[in-house]
């Protein structure tokens, strides 16, 4: 599996260069709100995983990889590991940059907990979101999968907006502070279960696909 991660990091070098430039632009945009930076970075960085899947499709790498002594499950697992690594790494970098920005602007005391809490939470959200996306990419291919992913994000955003606009009418359904705290403490386990289920589904889809 380390071979596949190495291969993906090598092929993402051009992507990291342009991502770095975009990152600098985001730093300028979120100068006053560094706590948003880590959230944005955590959600955007796993798009690199989709890029690697796109390269794999374009170069027919998966056909070759399946002929190597690795197994289909290892090939799929490498994408999930890459997702976690990229989300965590980008979020950590964003957290450090955001911390420096808040210290420079004398906002450390109020911003630091929010920055790092947001970074951690964003990693979880990114992993959760892409856990729904990855099986779709394996099933429909990267090109169609991108559109489905955009649709999924759109539906999620619309649902959140709808819930927020109806919150006054849904007071009976809003969880209590205690329930929210419990959900927060259990969230790592919930995310882990969802990732595991997503991985199993992706493996089944990938194994059934004939080599192209």
């Amino acid at each position, binding site marked *: 599996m380390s*071979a596949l991660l*190495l291969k993906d990091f090598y092929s993402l070098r051009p992507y990291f260069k342009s991502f770095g430039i975009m990152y600098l632009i985001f730093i300028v945009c979120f100068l006053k709100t560094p706590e948003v930076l880590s959230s944005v970075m955590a959600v955007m960085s796993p798009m690199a995983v989709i890029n690697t899947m796109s390269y794999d499709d374009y170069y027919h790498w998966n056909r*070759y*990889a399946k*002929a*190597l002594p690795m197994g289909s499950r290892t090939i799929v697992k490498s994408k999930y590991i890459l997702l976690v690594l990229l989300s965590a790494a980008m979020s950590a970098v964003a957290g450090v940059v955001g911390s420096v920005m808040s210290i420079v602007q004398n906002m450390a005391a109020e911003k630091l907990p929010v920055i790092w809490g947001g970074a951690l939470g964003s990693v979880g959200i990114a992993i959760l979101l892409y856990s729904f996306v990855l099986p779709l990419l394996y099933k429909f291919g990267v090109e169609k999968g991108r559109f489905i992913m955009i649709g999924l994000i759109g539906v999620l955003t619309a649902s959140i907006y709808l819930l927020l606009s109806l919150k006054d009418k849904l007071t009976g359904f809003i969880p209590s502070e205690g329930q929210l705290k419990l959900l927060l403490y259990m969230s790592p386990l919930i995310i882990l279960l969802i990732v595991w289920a997503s991985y199993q589904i992706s493996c089944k889809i990938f194994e059934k696909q*004939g*080599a192209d």
Partner: protein
Amino acid sequence: MDYAIELQNVCKNYDNFKLDHVTMNVPKGSVVGFVGENGAGKTTTIKAILNLITVDSGKIQVFGQDHVEQEQAIKEQIGVVFDESCFHEQLTAPEIGKVMSKIYKEWQPREFDEFLRRFQLPAQKKIKEYSRGMKMKLSIAVAMSHKAKLLILDEATSGLDPIVRDEILELFLDFIQDEEHTILVSSHIISDLEKIADYIIFIHGGKILFQKNKDELLYEYGIIRCSEEQFRKLDPKLCISYRKNQFGYEVLTGKRKEIGKIYRDLVIDQADIENIILFYVKGVRL
């Protein structure tokens, strides 16, 4: 005889095509040419051997072991080359070597570097800057740098110029000097197979039509050129198929010597592999 690959009654159904009870063997220490027209089932058979597709029925063994149960161990000993390079083109050849070193337990970095030097593959250039021939040489270098006992080549020399092909064939002949090494090569370029193959397996419409020793094939098969009158007198049991042209009939026989003894006035030429395939595919069966 030991076999590197054995297929017994392998079937695989698709909507418009099927592998139909494919039975074939690749003897250890030999070069087997796997021929057939486009869409005959060569690549599908190779995919079945490599477990890239699941067969509907039949048995496949590689090195005497079930190809699914011992998949990882088997693939450590197989070098695969497809008709196009599958490496990400942002990588350089040494980077491919580093990736492969983490995949194969028996990866030989010095051998790989030696292949890069022998093939004159520039280490600093990315693969996207390589020509088609260079990409294919890189794929072959990878396939031969991990102590593979079996090379499976699926149209690996298609689209290459004769000089590059000749270089590559020389390499395969070196590889096969070790009697533990075996090559299964599927190709449309019959002249390449005539140079290196020991056996020829011909597949047509998903069925194996013959598997023969190449020299015996060339010895036994012949093309009879005759008039219609002579054609009518031929025993169909001694003939395989015929083609009619403006000059008369051309008949493929698998019993060249026998027919020569019976019909002494007939012109019988030795058939080459390409003609044998053409007659099987385009000829009218007798």
